[in-house]
């Protein structure tokens, strides 16, 4: 039980708006009031589903068109920019689609320790320090400054210091060249040309032709095997049904082509020419036969080599799980690891799911961290902070470690970010839901919070009347007087904040005692304390209403609604559940 920090989480209302049927099946077994209507039910912060709807205020957005809180679950993400976190190069999304989500320049991470790698020359330059800056100097390697790994260890060296990604794609670990997909395709085309040109070629003849270029028994890596298989079956499909050749070329279904259209129409009109043709051609398909076609036969002795290697090189030569996870293909040994190209990152814009308005939009440039649009809930709904009312006693370890059955008072401070005066109603259940029912009383459930006006303006307006005086009065009471919170009265009040007192009688965490004292649920499952069950969490229903000035729209940041009638002040209302974690209950 370390330090406890009080927290206030807000429930996004999007979880309520789901169709009712969602709630029937997976309703938590803990919830007692499942028969109640959604609106009447107390929000249970311990229900398993509550985890997914509670957010700290900072994580929430606010849609000014729907006048609703928006959480990460009810916004749509849109990618604005892809960029490499290492070189901050902005990658066009077309490149991301074709090349994948890794940096295709020279940004690599160490496969051993994930530190960024740097390119350096192998040749010790006579001038030492400046060797890396000069373009001359023999082969280059990737170096890790952190763990001293270098690509020399996996037998990879580069001719040029830039464009490492492209160079690396052509070299296997150990320095052998990789036959790229393009080269394979070229080879394949060549072969096809030869076979079609040559007179009366039987299967063996073809085999000989191939051996000249590529070994049909070569051991392929996962990528080239896939590309081989794909090419083979595409060609098979094209040969098998020439009418639909258009349809399948390039792996695309291409419904726009006339051939495909007639085929689809044929399905409905009950068989036509296209259908017959394709049927007659069936049976021409064959399966892949060798490595050139993507077939890899697992030899029974293939694992012996691995076992041998394990026996000779030992545990130290095997890659750890973390290292394996970073690799794109399955690797067992450290020598098989490859440098990891940096994963690209994104900047995202967020839209409201219901009205599609943009809630947050960053600047597309990578170097700037500014936002063009950012409608955060922090600017639109009152924030809540929790403080203990009584000062820390000498013996007390933490103000948020509460003693069972002893009434404890907390201060809830509501801060208004709006430029209007807001009325706040807060409601809590008399007893918190869960196995240990804590008694909760809000001493002042209804109050008004002043507008978030300019502090200077406020000071000028002060003078005789004002809130300041009232604040002083209440404060004075608190310090000299009975040190007791009065029911129905605000504890303290400032320019745009109000604090009220909430009194909690924490439940005892013991399972002993007569049965009649226990809650239903406790009787049902008994047993030990569950994880974090000693945290005193209070569900609070907050209803905020204020009068928004329709003319005030732009400066107040409250758009939408009241378009024609600019003089009319509009009433706005917002209601949501919060969960306040006020402390931990001490265990005896």
């Amino acid at each position, binding site marked *: 039980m370390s330090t406890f920090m009080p927290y206030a989480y807000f429930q996004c209302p999007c979880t309520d708006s789901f169709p009712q049927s969602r709630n029937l099946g997976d309703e938590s077994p803990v919830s007692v009031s499942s028969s109640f209507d959604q609106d009447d039910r107390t929000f249970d912060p311990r229900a398993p589903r509550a985890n997914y709807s509670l957010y700290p205020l900072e994580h929430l957005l606010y849609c000014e068109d729907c006048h609703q809180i928006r959480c990460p679950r009810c916004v749509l993400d849109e990618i604005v920019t892809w960029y490499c976190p290492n070189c901050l190069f902005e990658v066009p999304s077309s490149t991301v689609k074709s090349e994948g989500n890794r940096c295709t320049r020279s940004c690599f991470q160490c496969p051993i320790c994930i530190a960024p790698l740097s390119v350096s020359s192998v040749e010790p330059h006579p001038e030492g*320090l400046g060797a890396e800056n000069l373009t001359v100097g023999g082969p280059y390697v990737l170096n890790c400054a952190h*763990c*001293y790994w270098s690509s020399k260890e996996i037998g990879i060296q580069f001719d040029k210091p830039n464009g490492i990604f492209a160079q690396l794609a052509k070299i296997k670990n150990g320095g052998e060249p990789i036959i790229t997909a393009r080269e394979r395709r070229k080879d394949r085309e060549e072969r096809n040309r030869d076979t079609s040109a040559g007179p009366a070629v039987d299967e063996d003849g073809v085999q000989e032709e191939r051996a000249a270029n590529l070994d049909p028994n070569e051991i392929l890596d996962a990528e080239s095997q896939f590309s081989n298989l794909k090419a083979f079956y595409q060609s098979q499909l094209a040969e098998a049904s020439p009418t639909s050749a258009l349809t399948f070329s390039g792996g695309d279904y291409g419904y726009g082509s006339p051939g495909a259209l007639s085929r689809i129409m044929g399905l409905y009109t009950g068989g036509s020419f296209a259908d017959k043709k394709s049927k007659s051609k069936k049976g021409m398909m064959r399966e892949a036969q060798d490595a050139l076609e993507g077939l890899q036969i697992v030899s029974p002795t293939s694992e012996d080599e691995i076992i041998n290697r394990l026996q000779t090189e030992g545990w130290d030569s095997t890659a750890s799980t973390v290292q394996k996870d970073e690799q794109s293909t399955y690797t067992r040994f450290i020598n098989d690891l490859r440098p990891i190209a940096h994963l690209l990152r994104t900047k995202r814009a967020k839209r409201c799911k219901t009205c599609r308005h943009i809630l947050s939009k960053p600047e597309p440039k990578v170097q700037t961290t500014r936002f063009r649009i950012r409608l955060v809930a922090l600017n639109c709904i009152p924030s809540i902070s929790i403080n203990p009312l009584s000062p820390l006693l000498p013996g007390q370890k933490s103000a948020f470690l509460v003693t069972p059955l002893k009434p404890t008072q907390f201060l809830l401070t509501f801060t208004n970010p709006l430029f209007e005066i807001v009325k706040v109603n807060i409601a809590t259940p008399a007893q918190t839901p869960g196995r240990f029912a804590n008694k909760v009383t809000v001493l002042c459930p209804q109050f008004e919070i002043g507008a978030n006006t300019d502090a200077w303006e406020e000071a000028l307006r002060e003078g005789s009347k004002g809130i300041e005086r009232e604040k002083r009065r209440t404060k004075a009471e608190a310090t000299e007087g009975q040190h007791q919170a009065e029911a129905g009265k605000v504890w303290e009040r400032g320019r745009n904040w109000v604090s009220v007192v909430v009194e909690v009688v924490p439940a005892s965490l013991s399972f002993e005692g007569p049965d009649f004292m226990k809650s239903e649920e406790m009787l049902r499952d008994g047993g030990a304390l569950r994880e974090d069950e000693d945290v005193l969490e209070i569900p609070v229903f907050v209803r905020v209403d204020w009068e928004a000035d329709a003319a005030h729209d732009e400066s107040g940041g409250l758009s939408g609604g009241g378009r024609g009638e600019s003089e009319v002040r509009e009433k706005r209302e917002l209601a949501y559940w919060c969960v306040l974690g006020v402390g931990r209950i001490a265990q005896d």
Partner: protein
Amino acid sequence: MSSSKRVSTAPAAPKSPTVLAPTLVIGEHAVLTGTYLITLGSNTVVHPRTKLNSTYAPITIGNNCIISERSIIGLQSPGSDQGMTIENGVVVEVGAIVEAKSIGEGSIIEVNAKIGKHAVLGKHCKIGPMCEVGEHEIVPDFTVLFGNGMRRIDRSGVEDLKLKMVARQVEILRKLIPNNLAKFK
């Protein structure tokens, strides 16, 4: 020890016996304490506010070493008085604590690393930032400690180049650090 300013009004601790090479660079605020002999080799750089403590065992530091500020060298509590040897070309980074018996040539002890009592480090080792070597541990040559206690053997074979780089760094530090060799003689 009597290193902070507040204690300086008290009679200064007796100067520890030293053998200092004439080409040594040592900052004025370096702290050399203890009763055993402290030997510092030629072309070595000792930054200001380095603490060398020979209270429990003698300290020998070779040539071309860099001992950075706020690092603590020497046994901090009684142990065997066999002494401690740092070979040539060793770099001890900021805040490292070294209580080893010996540290091999060309090793680097990174920021805030800790070398336990009587540990033996081989040649060209690298102890990563915040890494720890246990007491009496023997670390073979070319070992690299990094991350969360991970280890590997460095086979890149560029140790000569690294030694050259250290020498170059010493050259530059020689110009940057005001030398006050006379104070410690």
